[in-house]
């Protein structure tokens, strides 16, 4: 059974179906979209159950010639890392659809178009995580930009078109650098036994260290822009501020993971030596991102920008974990990607509801919501606690794994990064105090609390956050073998306990 192709096909079929609907049936379009994403979610969960956890080889593999002249294949397959990200995407999309039920209505175009874009984006997200052919990956990587671009520019708010353009150009620029590297890989593979884009085959290529370093940078910068890592992050706050909350969830929760996922899948496996060469630099950038993003978040006045900045900080942790090269950090980074998807989703969705009710995204315009809209306030609070990695919530597990895993190899980086947890408390509690606590500011007295649909949307997110906090094993069991495989392929073993030199 070709699960991966199937789950990629489901949203595409749904999109086609929605395209046939008349323009006026916007409710039907929504229902179709929800149904499609739910079916995709169920299919993905079913696929997850079929996944052999202990098997570190790629699974659900399929491969067909696509462009034979260039050795390009439609080749898909997943390991534990890709699987959890696909699962995350599959779970988040129906939630986004349900949570943002009325999001499409302020847009330039019809509701129908909105959901077609969302579904196409979902297919591409699946594809980008599932691809095992570099070219196929690149195609998804770039093509994904188009629906997101239209989602931001067409349905966002404020300076939406400027933000969309900034996002697109930034990403395209990175993508083109990656393209240059891909071209070089293509040529190299041609010189060494036939053109191919198969990751396995590419990882066997022999390259001079200069070549490897340059090609690595091509990939890495593209991923660092996507992730986003300091100093390539400035597109994110603008995009997140302008996009609809649902789009922001997909943007930060799913799309940006492509960057960190790409680092694991492509940077590490194809350029192991260059990865080691650049590790000190990347670790430095990660640590800077953690603190820098946190400070920006503390200074943010707009709630959506704030969430975007927190993500910059979180992506710093993820990158740190990836390049620390210990099993703990590697597993932690992947789990972090998964968890971050949900905690950011919770933050953005609730923030979106707050903003749509209040008509403003400025934090100072809120106040005392806990008394007016307790359920909404609580949801935001729990999401915030997850974002600051409170023990007992899912992010803690991943953040701590990254830190402890990094510490065994790079103690200084881990120590500096740990300061991020204090800053995290600040950047979450400041908006909590301003928006949820204090006296009820004028303009907030009559806000409505979450309705049933919104409660249904947010509940599973919070459930995931809480359950994985106490019991992360289901996710870790999938991730661990793959993460360990990555570390061992890079030729690393976990540092042994030193007993402090004794």
């Amino acid at each position, binding site marked *: 059974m070709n699960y991966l192709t199937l789950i990629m096909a489901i949203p595409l079929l749904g999109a086609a179906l929605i395209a046939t609907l008349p323009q006026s049936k916007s409710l039907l379009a929504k229902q179709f979209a929800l149904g499609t994403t739910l079916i995709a979610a169920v299919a993905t969960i079913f696929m997850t159950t079929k996944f052999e956890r202990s098997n570190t080889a790629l699974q659900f593999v399929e491969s067909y*010639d*696509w*462009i*034979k*002249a*260039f050795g390009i294949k439609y080749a898909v397959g997943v390991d534990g890392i890709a699987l959890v990200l696909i699962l995350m995407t599959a779970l988040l999309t129906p939630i986004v659809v349900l949570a943002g039920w009325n999001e499409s209505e302020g847009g*330039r*175009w019809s509701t129908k178009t909105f959901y077609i874009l969302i579904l196409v984006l979902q297919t591409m997200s699946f594809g980008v995580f599932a691809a095992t052919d570099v070219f196929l990956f*690149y*195609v*998804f990587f*770039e*093509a994904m*930009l*188009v629906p997101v671009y*239209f989602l931001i*520019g*067409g349905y966002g708010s404020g300076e*939406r*078109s400027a933000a*969309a*353009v900034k996002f*697109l*150009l930034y990403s*395209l*620029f990175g993508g*083109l*650098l990656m*393209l*240059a590297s*891909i*071209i*070089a890989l*293509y*040529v190299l593979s*041609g010189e060494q036994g036939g053109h191919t884009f198969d990751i396995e085959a590419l990882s066997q290529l022999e390259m001079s260290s200069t070549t490897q370093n340059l090609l690595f940078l091509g990939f890495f910068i593209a991923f660092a822009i996507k992730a986003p890592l300091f100093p390539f992050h400035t597109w994110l706050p603008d995009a997140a501020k302008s996009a609809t909350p649902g789009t922001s969830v997909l943007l930060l929760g799913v799309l940006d993971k492509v960057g960190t996922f790409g680092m694991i899948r492509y940077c590490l496996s194809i350029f192991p030596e260059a990865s080691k060469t650049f590790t000190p630099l990347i670790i430095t950038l990660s640590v800077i991102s953690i603190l820098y993003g946190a400070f920006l978040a503390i200074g943010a006045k707009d709630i959506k920008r704030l969430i975007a900045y927190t993500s910059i900080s979180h992506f710093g942790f993820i990158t740190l974990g990836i390049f620390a090269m210990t099993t703990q950090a590697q597993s932690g980074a992947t789990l972090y990607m998964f968890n971050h998807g949900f905690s950011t989703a919770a933050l953005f969705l609730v923030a979106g509801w707050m903003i749509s009710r209040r008509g403003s995204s400025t934090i100072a315009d809120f106040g005392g919501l806990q008394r007016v809209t307790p359920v909404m306030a609580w949801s935001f609070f729990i999401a915030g606690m997850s974002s600051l990695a409170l023990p007992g919530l899912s992010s803690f597990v991943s953040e701590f794994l990254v830190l402890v895993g990094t510490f065994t190899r790079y103690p200084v980086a881990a120590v500096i990064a740990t300061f991020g947890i204090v800053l995290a408390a600040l950047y979450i509690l400041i908006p909590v105090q301003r928006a949820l606590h204090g006296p009820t500011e004028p303009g907030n007295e009559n806000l409505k609390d979450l309705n049933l649909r919104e409660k249904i949307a947010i509940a599973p997110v919070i459930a995931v956050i809480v359950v994985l906090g106490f019991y992360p094993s289901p996710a870790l069991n999938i991730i661990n073998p793959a993460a360990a495989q990555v570390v061992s392929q890079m030729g690393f073993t976990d540092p042994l306990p030193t007993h402090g030199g004794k």
Partner: protein
Amino acid sequence: MSEFISPTLSYSLLSPILVVFAGAIIGVLIEAFASKSIRPIAQVSVSIGTLVLALVQVWRIRSSSSTTAAMGSVIIDGPGLLLQGSILIISIIAVFLIADTENFAAAPAAIPGSSEERESIARGQQVSEVFPLTLFAVAGMLIFPVASDLITLFVALEVLSLPLYLMAGLSRRRRLLSQESALKYFLLGAFSSAFFLFGAAYLYGYSGSISFAGIRDAVVGGTGNDVFLLIGIAFLSIGLLFKVGAVPFHAWTPDVYQGAPTPVTAFMAAATKVAAFGAMLRIYYSVFANAEWSWRPLITGIAIITMVFGSLVAISQRDVKRMLAYSSIAHAGFLLTGVIALNKAGLDASIYYLFAYGIASVGAFAVVTLVRDSAGEVTDLNRWAGLGKRSPWVATSFATFLLAFAGIPLTSGFIGKFSIFSAAYESGATAVVIAGVLSSAIAAFFYIRVIVLMFFSDPLEDATSVLIPSILTRITVLFSVVVTIFLGVFPSPLLDFISNIAIFIR
């Protein structure tokens, strides 16, 4: 003196060219003798019939290729036939656009706004000489990439150019601009022809032969005076670079693209580029291949300057046709990387790129013809604002072409760019690849800006309407969109086809 040998022309192999010439002559006769009422429909059907027939001929002789014809003046080989096929397909859809005679002056010779002109409009007297002119140009283009001696090459160049000079001046609206563009195109074209011819003379002087084979032998043998060779290469290159619009020989491009009637621009932009690059590929790949030490660095430099310049200047354009013109300059730069590559992959990639770009170009200009107000086409980009709202399909089609120009995956432009850059990289031209990638990023800037304008901006007050497209225009746009996307998603058939037959014979 040897005995006179009766020339063998291999009519079969020349049939596509001959068919087009015949069609052109029939067109002239129709223009002269047919009654006004049937003239338009007759011209259109003759043109299209001729081109289709020629295309069929090309297909028919595809397997008997790789030989010379007309006493070695013409080489019919894989690349030549592919390019001829491309030119014919592009011409057919371009003729669909030209068939919308609304764009053309009723009496081009008349003074704009004169009583003669009013009279001819009032009587519905539409001169349709544009069709035979097009066919003559096509014939020239068909010969240009297969020519294998200097005379044929020069004559083909003039045969394709002269009709175009005239066609540029045929616009119904903004006559002054149109005539100015014709004048500029003509003067500069003739000027560059002189360079071309001068270069040809020195190549002849170098090798003692006007046939490509002779020149190549001389280059390989290294017997002649290198100074002659270098002057020859330089001046011949100027002529060719002028035709493809490479910097610094590009200056005519924006003015002519803007001034000429849009269907003519479409035809010229797409088909001329195929023909000119076709000739260029043949000359550099087979004739000058062994002298690559002399020209490759130069072409590399020109390629880099061209793509960067085209991309940079396109950003600040406010007129859609000028923007497309600069975009075509940038693409000329990209295509030059295929010339530099100087390997089989480069050849295949260039042919693929030319075809894909040509189709997308015609499509893009076809869309331009549709956006009008009461005074004719609206090419001011500001007034394209909000097009996506009013005419989503037109805007989406245009966006597709722009994405293809930008080289976004799943469009033909991406495959083209990938293949041509990888070929160049393979040949060691890393610098040009990096410049190409960077200018692609710049280029993306203005393509996206147009998309933003169409989809994300609110329309200005004065409503720009979109003409309900004629069936032929609709076919053109639809065909272009389908081909652009199909070649982006399933490029294999075409790539394999090209790869199998695109081998220059020497």
